[in-house]
């Protein structure tokens, strides 16, 4: 447990670093009106941005957080949202991610088993081609392909479609890792012994091989969870889901500086929580990790 806490402390350091970096990045933006360019903001808006970020005030860098905790609107225009709304939108994105995770695990297991099966036959090239196609396809492309169907037939849940398209890349990535681990395990002596004693290949896989493959899966679940959350941004944008990804993109496009600072930090905090969750699950599920750290 000590190692888990140490890792948590290290990960927690990420939150203030992100908060400070994003605040000062936004605070240094030249939100002036000196130029006649269309992209420059009006004097009223520039003054409003400065107020939002507390520029020029003592302890002004705490201003976005004060607004967040007081329940005030973070931004300057109609898109500016309160902390409660931000959390609601974040929970929507997390919901899509939670739906995508089991789908990704199903893709992973299915692809790993298929790849092991293909390796022996003439379909071996598919084991390389499928990951390459999945890795070469940004999330927005499958989202674009399902978008007309979602628009035309309202009964298809946009959230489910978003989860489906978001899960493909992480699923195939996990599947590649699990497939490699599966191949290694299948060549071990205990598998030959179990088969030699008359156990069916399915039973050997279920009872002996898969439990040994699980740690490889857990190693990759952390980064994959991040990819699921970040990947849902594109799906939300294409399918018109009003969640965190949509909010973040609109905040950046509309230069909602205080929203960007708070949303970036909130997202970093979520990543820390996900990372901790994965670490705890690994500690509970994998006895070898406990023994190695003892």
């Amino acid at each position, binding site marked *: 447990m000590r190692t888990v806490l140490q890792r948590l402390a*290290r*990960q927690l*350091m*990420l939150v203030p*670093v*992100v908060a400070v970096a*994003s605040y000062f*990045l*936004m605070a*240094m*933006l*030249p*939100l*002036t009106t*000196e*130029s006649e*360019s269309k*992209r*420059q903001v009006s004097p009223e808006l520039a003054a409003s941005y400065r107020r939002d970020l507390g520029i020029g005030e003592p302890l002004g860098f705490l201003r976005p957080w004060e607004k967040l905790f007081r329940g005030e609107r973070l931004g300057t225009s109609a898109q500016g949202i309160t902390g409660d709304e931000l959390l609601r939108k974040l929970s929507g994105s997390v919901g899509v991610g939670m739906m995508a995770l089991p789908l990704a695990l199903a893709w992973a297991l299915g692809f790993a088993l298929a790849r092991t099966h293909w390796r022996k036959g003439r379909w071996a090239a598919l084991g*390389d*081609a499928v*990951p*390459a*196609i999945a*890795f*070469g*396809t*940004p*999330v*927005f*492309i499958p989202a*674009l*392909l399902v*978008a*007309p169907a979602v*628009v035309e037939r309202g009964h298809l849940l946009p959230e489910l479609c978003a989860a489906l398209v978001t899960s493909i890349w992480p699923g195939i990535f996990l599947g590649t890792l699990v497939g490699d681990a599966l191949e290694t395990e299948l060549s071990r002596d205990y598998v030959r012994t179990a088969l030699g004693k008359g156990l069916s290949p399915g039973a050997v896989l279920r009872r002996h091989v898969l439990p040994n493959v699980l740690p490889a899966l857990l190693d990759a679940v952390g980064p994959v969870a*991040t*990819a699921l*959350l*970040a990947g849902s*941004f*594109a799906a939300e*944008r*294409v399918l018109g889901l009003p969640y965190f990804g949509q909010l*973040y*993109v609109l905040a*950046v*496009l509309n*230069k909602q500086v205080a929203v*960007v600072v708070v949303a*970036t930090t909130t*997202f*970093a905090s979520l*990543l820390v929580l996900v*990372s901790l969750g994965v670490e705890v699950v690994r500690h509970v599920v994998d006895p070898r990790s406990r023994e190695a750290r003892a």
Partner: protein
Amino acid sequence: MSGMPPRARFGFVLLVGLGVLSLVAGRLFPDWLANTCPLGVDPTRPDRTVCELAFGGLWVSLAVGLVAGALSTLIGLAVAAVARLLGGALEQVVLRGVDAVFALPDVLVVMVLQLAGQSLSDAGLGGGLGPFGLMVASLALVGWAGPARMFRNRLATLEGQEFVAAARALGGGGAHVLRVHLWPALRPFALAVFLSRLPTAILTESTVSFFGIARMEPMSLGRYLGTSYAALIYEGGSRVVLPAWALLVLLVLGASLASQALSAGPRKAA
């Protein structure tokens, strides 16, 4: 090329072929491409054909990927070398910083950096960086942490070998050992890391351009897809999106295969 695994050869041929094709079709003979395109004109830009836009975008995406991938690899290599030379607690501090950057999602950070960079450019403080330079700088600033981790681990492994111990015993300093003994062994790995960064950079750029945040001019494949996807709603609209997608997949396929085969090569040799 003769000793290269077939997968790597296929990847390199695909990558170089796409590069040559985009140069020839997108830059050298755009008129020929415009007149012979079987896919017709883009509904949202009646003066341009789908082929012109797709191959023009391929050229831009490839250029962004190559430059950003090279810069990320160089920064990662420099950070890893400095970390190994510092050693001890300082190396651990550098590694924690690398981990912190690595934990951040690329797309999110590139969006924020684009916002900051574009605001500076609008105010005349961009330092001469156009949309291309700004995108490359953003991708390099985000993408160096992965290569730094990989290089640091590879350097630590190489330093455990006997010839390095012998060089140290004979009085070789850290920088000398790195330059003379480690770098030759690290070079093929550096090429593999660079090739692995190439698809990541292209996909991140595509996604950010797709959101409409990056102002890539001329349009990259991602920006083209981002500005044309409404065509999918109409009958036959897939002819607008599918060629650009296919080129993106082929580009990433080439880079991934070449990178995987190169990083697997030294292990097989060992």
